[in-house]
Structure formats: structure tokens, C-alpha cells
């Protein structure tokens, strides 16, 4: 796809040159860990059974926080497209002989790259803080790949949805409204933060269908257990498979909508 390279590089330049976005991106992981680690530390008192065998709450919650970081960055992936349209830059892209979808996919890729950096920082932060992340049963290359795949698939799912929305939405406040509407439900109706045992029955049932739960659970399984048993592996495969199917469908949607519908 011609246009994808230069557009993605533009997107990344805008990101790392903006000191505020760079700084908040660096601080945010510590924030999350400090807040959740201490706010819910009492949960540890329920013992390892409730935490699926995790040695502490940080270790338990890591999968959730990684997923949420991916999710929240992804929700904002369409905002730049709306501003490109407002500021006239989109006009320059639309008169160029590039694939229209490369405009949208540059946002998807740039957001994914940002998420990857944040994931790295967050894991580092979790390892550094006292009573933080502990790999009790080791952490293999396969575990690392599963972790990255889970976060990236969640990222692709939601960047696809939100960049596609931005193809048709022309007002920034509209997309901010949509983001505000969905972010908390996606976070709380999931297993990202709490063990199912602590959730109301109906909430826990609904959370089963949330891709945020799938990613959080998959990461949790590999972080806590290291080498997986056959049945654990099977669950992880199901979660990742679900995420992959959803991501593929939504990426295809993003492709077709952006090829045909994008305009000033």
C-alpha cells in the first residue's frame, strides 16, 4: 500500500515530538500500577485461591492493566483523523495517488506502535516497584509472544472500530462522546481488574463476552503459570482465537470503509 510508510512515520513523529504526550505515556503505567496496586491490595488478603494462584495483586492485575492501556490508546486512535480533516491535511492525502485505506491504516499502525512501547514500559515498571510483578513459575518466549499477541489483538480490534468511526464522524466532540460512553463499561464489565469470584453474577456473565476479558485472562494465565498445562493452553488458544477472528473481521471492515467512504 503506497502511502502507508510516510503516513505512519508522520503519525509517529507527531507523537514523540509532543513532550506532553510522551511524558504522560511514560508516567501513566506507573500511575496505573500505583493506583490499582494499592487501592485493591486488600484483595490479596482473600488469598491465592481468589487470585488464581498469583503471588500478589500486581502480578494478578498485570494482564488487565496491559489490556486496558492498549484499549484506552486504541479508543483515541481515530481522533487524529478528525483533526486531519479539520485542519485540511486530509485534503492533501486525498489528492495524492495513494490508497485511501493507507490513511486509516497509518493510524492503526501508529497506535499499535505506541501501545507496544507502553506495554514495555509498564512491564518494566511492574518489575521495579516493591511487591511488584513476580514470575513465580518462569516466563518463556512463548509466554512473551502470547502476552504481546493478546494486547496487540485488543489494540487492533479497537483501533479498527474507532478509526472507522472517524471516517464518518466529522466532529471531535462526537467521537469524544462515544469514547466516554464505552470506556468504563469495557473496563468494568470485564475480568481486567477483578477476579470473577468478586463480581456480581450477571456482571461476571456479561464479562465473559468482552474481548478485554479474553486478553486479560490469556496474559494472566501465562504470567502466573509460566509453563502451561494442556488445559490452560487450550483456554489461551480459545481466547486468542476469539481475539484474532474479531480483529480480522474489524480490520477488513476498516479497509473497505476507508477505501470507499473516506472524504473531507
Amino acid at each position, binding site marked *: 500500500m503506497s502511502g502507508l510508510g510516510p503516513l505512519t512515520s508522520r503519525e509517529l513523529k507527531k507523537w514523540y*515530538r509532543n513532550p506532553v504526550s510522551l511524558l504522560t505515556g511514560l508516567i501513566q503505567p506507573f500511575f496505573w500500577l500505583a493506583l490499582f496496586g494499592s487501592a485493591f491490595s486488600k484483595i490479596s488478603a482473600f488469598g491465592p485461591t481468589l487470585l488464581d494462584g498469583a503471588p500478589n495483586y500486581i502480578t494478578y492485575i498485570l494482564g488487565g492493566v496491559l489490556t486496558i492501556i492498549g484499549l484506552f490508546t486504541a479508543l483515541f486512535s481515530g481522533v487524529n483523523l478528525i483533526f486531519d480533516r479539520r485542519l485540511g491535511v486530509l485534503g492533501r492525502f486525498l*489528492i495524492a*495517488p495513494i490508497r485511501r485505506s493507507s490513511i486509516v491504516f497509518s493510524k492503526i499502525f501508529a497506535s499499535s506502535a505506541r501501545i507496544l512501547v507502553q506495554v514495555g514500559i509498564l512491564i518494566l515498571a511492574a518489575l521495579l516497584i516493591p511487591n511488584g510483578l513476580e514470575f513465580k513459575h518462569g516466563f518463556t518466549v512463548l509466554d512473551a509472544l502470547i502476552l504481546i499477541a493478546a494486547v496487540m489483538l485488543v489494540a487492533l480490534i479497537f483501533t479498527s472500530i474507532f478509526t472507522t468511526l472517524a471516517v464518518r464522524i466529522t466532529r471531535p466532540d462526537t467521537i469524544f462522546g462515544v469514547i466516554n460512553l464505552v470506556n468504563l463499561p469495557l473496563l468494568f464489565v470485564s475480568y481486567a481488574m477483578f477476579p470473577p469470584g468478586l463480581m456480581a453474577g450477571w456482571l461476571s456473565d456479561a464479562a465473559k463476552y468482552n474481548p478485554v476479558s479474553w486478553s486479560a485472562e490469556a496474559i494472566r494465565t501465562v504470567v502466573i503459570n509460566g509453563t502451561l498445562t494442556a488445559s490452560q493452553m487450550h483456554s489461551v488458544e480459545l481466547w486468542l482465537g476469539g481475539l484474532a477472528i474479531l480483529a480480522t473481521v474489524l480490520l477488513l471492515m476498516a479497509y473497505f470503509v476507508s477505501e470507499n467512504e473516506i472524504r473531507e
Partner: protein
Amino acid sequence: MAAIIETRNLTKIYGGKVKALDDLNISIEEGEVYGLLGPNGAGKTTTINLLVTRIAPTSGTAIVNGFDIVKNSLEVRKSIGVVPQDLTTDEDLSGYENLKMVSQFYDVPAEEAKERIHKLLAMVSLDDVKNRLVRQYSGGMRKRLELIAGLVHDPKILFLDEPTLGLDVTTRTQMWKYVREIQEKLDVTIILTSHYLEEVDALANRISIIDHGKVLATGTSEELKSNLKGDIILATMKTDKDAETLMKYPGAIEAKENGPRAVRLKVQNSDEELPKIIQYISGNSLSITRLTVQKPTLDDVFLEYTGNEIRTEEPTDTRQEMMNLRRLRR
């Protein structure tokens, strides 16, 4: 010479209601600077946007550099450069980075792009500020950057939509210089829109006047002016009665009121008619306070075809008077 752009009943209706372009047929030749002149809302930007495949026509089509804008928009886009009416460069990148990005859109090889970008930057005197963020550019600098952003891939055709809109007079004249230089050095066909008459007059070889989405007249500036039969004589009289009498002057093709006690006479040839008018005035003992002869300007052409004047820079009274004096003395 062959036509490089030809529109065929090009029509654009926005939202099923606003007919912005109505069966437009124009033909633009290779190597010329072609001006589209029209008042606000005439359909100039719509014409450009259709030709550069930014929007699709409601009906009709156009051939640009041998390619159909509807069926082969990608090929059209490759052969043209565009400088849209609104700004399109990215404020968060430097001038150089903006041009580099555009060159990549057109798959210009890196080395070639570098050379060309430097040449273009030098041409519009932006080489000193090429590494500054566009956010820090002045309005004129930004317009110059927009101008060359349409040229990094060596297009055959360049579209300029209101290239000097919002610039002060000095900067505008400077932009004209750059546009002429581009046309001479880069061997490119230029399509220019403007509602500044002087601009089109100064830059374009051939002009179409459009209004309400239709072409009203096409030709060189000279042709358009000479098609307007007759010169204009403006006279201001001392009394209303005198003005009325002058209105009845038999040698005029047309006589109109032109303000209080002022008369606008259209005559075949002012050089022959003026002595007769003076005789008529003294013969009828009329008192005259002011007499002006006007050769037709593009303004008059515009007025004739659109019924509107779009003069944007009113000469001051004293300047006008001095010009009048000079004309009378000739």
C-alpha cells in the same frame, strides 16, 4: 497544440440541491496558463476539485492528461499537482518534512526527491526556514510552501486555487513572480482560479469567466476587452437638468445614470466621439464638473458578463483623477 484538459458537460449538484456546476465545457491547452475568473460561489473550486478527483461529478466527465477523471482517477492524480484553496501542509512537521512526505506519496526516488525539493525551496526562497516547523511560518511563507508542495513530483499540470487569497499586496505580487518562474522553468500547464482580476490578467494567457456554474466568455484578456464594443465616457454635471440633457446625447450607444448628476455614456470610439460630446455640451450650454474616458478593463468585461463588479481594490479618488487627467490629455 492539443488539449490537455477537456471537460464534457461537467455537472456537480451538491446534496441534490445546489447546482454548483452546470454542463461546463472548457478546453485547456498544453503549456498555457489558464485562468478561471468568477465571483464568490461561481463554481471555481468545484471545477478544480472535480478535475483533481477530490470529488466526483454528478454527471458528465473530463479528460485530464488523457485520463478520464471518473474511470481513471488514480492516473489523473499521478499526473497533476494541486495547490488547494485551503492550507494542507502539516503544522507539526517542518517544511522539508512536508515536502518529503508528499514526494513519497508519488513514489519519487529518494535522491531525486531531495534534489528537487531543494531546487523548489530555493525557487520560493524558503531554504532558510526549511527545517522549521510549519506552525512557525508566516502566512506568506505557508502559501509558498503550499505552492511547491504541488510540484515535488514534477507534474504535467498544476492547479492553483486562489493562490494569493488573504495575502497583502506586496506578498501577492511576489507570488505572481514565483508562479511565472514556475511556468517558465518547469514547463507545466497551469490552471489558476481567482477572483482578483489583476491576478488573472497578470498571469493567465487565456481566461474563462464563469458564474453560476456556467462559462460566460473565454478568450485572452485582450480579446475579451475588445469584444466589449465601445468605450465608456463618464461625466458629472452641475445640475440634474444638465445631466438629463446629456443623457439624450445622440451619438451614444447606451446612456445610463451613474450616481447623482453623473452620466455613463457608451460610445463606439472615444477618440472620435469626445470632441463631438464637448461640442454638444457647449452647444446646449451645459455645465460640466468632471469628464472621464475609460478604455474597457477586465472589470468592465466582468461587469458586462456577470452583471456584478468584483473590483477588489478601489483606486483612491486622487489617483483616479490623475489617471483621468492623463487620459484626457492624450
